[in-house]
């Protein structure tokens, strides 16, 4: 993804634009604070209490629920927002701005939750546990994107690889067992990525077109096969893979609050943690990682030093596909235990936004994934709370957030410099 080229039209400017960019968010934050204090707060009685339930199940050490006065909580949140807003106007956060925006987002959401749950109880811990679960396909998808783009190839086909992985996982999983299903998903992802690689590297097809083609092909093929083979009742055995059960990590899962949220899930969540760690180390601390990144930044330079650009890119693509396929298998083998058409619902694209938001960094991707996961978990919770906003509108939330994230962040971050262009071996 290319960062924006700043527009340079000759226009009359009355205000220095850099100051405006600093004030605007600050003013926004203060407006948010005012909204929380005067709109939300006013509609609640002074005695209203909100309860954040802290225990999801009996496995962890139990602690009492967190009960507090709604108005006080809202005041606190409003105060924090206002404070941050003032700081932004006076000093500005500069490099940390996206973190701060995320922080304000979190505060706003917290405010809504406190307000919405006033007079009743809400399982905040439960929400966070769901956040972790929901973040899995997005984070792993983002890791797939990072693997590919850091070497200079844009992978728009993560969505297609995911749905193929979900399908392969479900069907092979039904026939040969869960682990075979995972293997099948990884292989399918790798094959699709190989096609993408050959098209982008050898035939120098525009990477967006090649990726879009794989998406069209994958959705088409999986739907075709589903209708042809999986819909009839006698074939149901082909689509009943079941799913991986959660496994509570001993000791860690007993920690109150933190335990059930992070350490009591199935293999996919743990795989996510491991992949983030492994990729972080591999990219920044190993020889492989240095060469991999050099090819994405300045392939000619790497080439003159003997790094095989083409081989590196092929490998990057295939690894990316394997990870994307694995991410896809989550939908079937890690969640509902079967394949349904369009079960990925655009998460492959949200994963790309998470990658950008996370600055092409595995740990950043994890954070961004959690953010999107939180949005999704919020959606379910809010509809249960009888929020005045209809459920369908809430379902839009992750997608709208993606748009906002992209709009706000892209100008500030820089992706790998050579990403998206085919490498030509030409005279220097």
């Amino acid at each position, binding site marked *: 993804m290319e960062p924006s080229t700043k527009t340079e039209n000759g226009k009359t400017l009355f205000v220095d634009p850099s100051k405006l960019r600093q004030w605007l968010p600050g003013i926004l934050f203060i407006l948010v604070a005012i909204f929380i204090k005067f709109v939300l707060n006013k509609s609640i009685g002074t005695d209203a209490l909100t309860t954040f339930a802290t225990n999801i199940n009996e496995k962890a050490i139990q602690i009492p629920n967190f009960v507090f006065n709604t108005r006080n909580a809202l005041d606190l949140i409003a105060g924090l927002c206002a404070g941050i807003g003032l700081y932004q106007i006076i000093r500005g956060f500069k490099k940390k701005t996206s973190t701060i925006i995320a922080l304000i987002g979190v505060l706003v959401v917290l405010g809504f939750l406190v307000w919405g749950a006033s007079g009743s109880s809400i399982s905040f811990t439960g929400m966070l546990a769901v956040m972790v679960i929901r973040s899995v396909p997005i984070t792993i998808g983002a890791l797939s994107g990072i693997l590919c783009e850091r070497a200079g190839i844009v992978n728009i086909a993560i969505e297609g690889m995911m749905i193929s992985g979900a399908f392969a996982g479900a069907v092979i999983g039904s026939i040969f067992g869960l682990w075979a299903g995972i293997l099948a998903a990884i292989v399918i992802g790798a094959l699709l990525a190989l096609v993408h690689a050959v098209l982008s590297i050898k035939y120098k097809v525009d990477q967006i077109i090649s990726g879009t083609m794989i998406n069209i092909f994958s959705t088409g093929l999986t739907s075709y096969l589903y209708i042809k083979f999986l819909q009839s009742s006698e074939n149901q055995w082909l689509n009943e893979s079941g799913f991986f059960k959660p496994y509570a990590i001993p000791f860690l899962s007993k920690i109150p609050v933190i335990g059930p949220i992070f350490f009591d899930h199935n293999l996919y969540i743990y795989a996510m943690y491991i992949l983030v760690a492994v990729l972080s180390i591999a990219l920044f601390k190993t020889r492989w990682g240095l060469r991999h990144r050099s090819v994405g930044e300045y392939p000619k*330079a790497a080439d003159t030093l*003997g790094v095989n650009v083409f081989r590196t890119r092929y490998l990057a693509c295939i690894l990316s596909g394997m990870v994307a396929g694995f991410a896809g298998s989550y939908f079937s083998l890690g969640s509902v235990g079967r394949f349904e058409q369009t079960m990925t619902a655009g998460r492959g694209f949200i994963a790309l936004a998470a990658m950008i938001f996370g600055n092409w960094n595995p740990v950043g991707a994890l954070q961004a994934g959690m953010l999107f996961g939180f949005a999704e978990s919020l959606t379910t919770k809010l509809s249960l709370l009888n929020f005045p906003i209809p459920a369908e509108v809430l379902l839009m939330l992750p997608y709208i957030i993606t748009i906002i994230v992209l709009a706000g962040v892209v100008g500030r971050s820089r992706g790998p410099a050579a990403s998206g262009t085919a490498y030509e071996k030409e005279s*220097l």
Partner: protein
Amino acid sequence: MPPILELKGITKRFPGVLANDHIDIKLEKGEILALLGENGAGKTTLMNILYGLYKPDEGEIFINGKKVEISSPIDAIRSGVGMVHQHFMLIPVFTVTENVMLGEEYTHHGGFLDRKKAADRIREISELYKLNVNPDDLVENLPVGLQQRVEIIKLLFRNADILIMDEPTAVLTPQEVDELFNILKTLVEKGKSIIFITHKLREVMECADRIEVIRLGKVVGSTIPAEASPEKLATMMVGREVDLKTEKKPCNICETVLTVEKLSVRDMLNRVAVKDVTFELSGGEILGIAGVQGNGQTELVRALTGLRTPISGKITLLGKDVSRSSSRRITELGTAHIPEDRQKDGLVLASPITENLVLNTYHRRPFSKGIILQRLAINENATELIKKFDIRTPGILTKVHYLSGGNQQKVIIAREFSRPIKLLIASQPTRGLDVGSIEYIHNRILEKRDQGCAVLLVSTELDEIMQLADRIAVMFRGNILTIVKANEVTKEDLGLLMAGITPSSHKEKPHTTKTEEIIT
């Protein structure tokens, strides 16, 4: 003792062109050999073959008398050959250590990088050869001269004995060039051998032990500096008598066309690249802006052509304030702009010549009536201009990317010069072109000046500035240090100014005919 390097019969063909034609070259140990030739002569191709980036169709390479097969840069490196490219092969977001190590990394068990060990070695090399480089710096923060030294360290890190330098002085001030030559002498003293590719005649005379001249893929002459002169070398390079000096009529100044007052402009990274620049330009004269690439010239030109809004200051064109005007308005007031990067800014490569020739006039009569394009007029215009400016092309509808560099530049010149213009801003107009095209463009520019046009010539080639300009301004770190008459200043003084040093042995004060400020 066999020569440390010998190339025998190297031949390389590309579709439609014979780049290297049975070339024989010898390099002795401890010598600096200069390969001289104009752009497109084949010298870079030859060196790319030596470095393993190309495979020769015929010919052999011998190192220390033994035949070697070099089919990739790794082979070249293993044979002790290293290359510093014209455009640096450095990754901006990596540190010096990472850039130097890439491909030859020091590792712990299991492939984990050992940055410390590499950094220590880099420090060692830097001290030994007096290179002054800090391994932990991010390359993108380093000035150009230092970046070049990082490239040299890359080679020494890999124990290169034969160093190839491709146009190394293109981005340096004359003082930095001297420093580079000193470094080369140090390298040679310590036993290294150097091949130096260039098209700059004077440097070759200063620095080389031996000179080989290449033209059209063949070696056409061998000599040593003691027996050569710039004129002789130029003749060998081009194949005919070359008049190194263009005839220039005395300057006949008309009224003021452009006034720039305390102009400040930011660059793409938001740093202030142009600081309070002030100067005036009149019709009938050429003002040359000299300076090493990256001192604000690019941003200055973009502000003057309406492509970037200045932070402060005023630009007056023909009496009108255009400080914040659009590029279209500035064009319509009678300005022509030959851009620095012709393929990026000046042409739409995938479009035919007809459309490129009306790139900034398509919206006016006769090329359009209202919003309807007038194809006939556009095509006629193309036919006419192709003839008038001698653009070599199969047809008027040929897409511009098929044309040679010189002809592409001619398209831009044809377009810009076919309007009535009062101000011409030419930015690096002859970069990468062959001598014939350079001559042509210089003559066209002088023509415009003689017709009363005001010309602003921005160039990193000091020779070009000294040949063409009537007055010369030197830009350094965003300031204009001084503006002098061309015939009242020496190249050495200009060199000092380009490095930010006001010559202490200052002659008479530069004449100020209008308001000019001298910033010491």
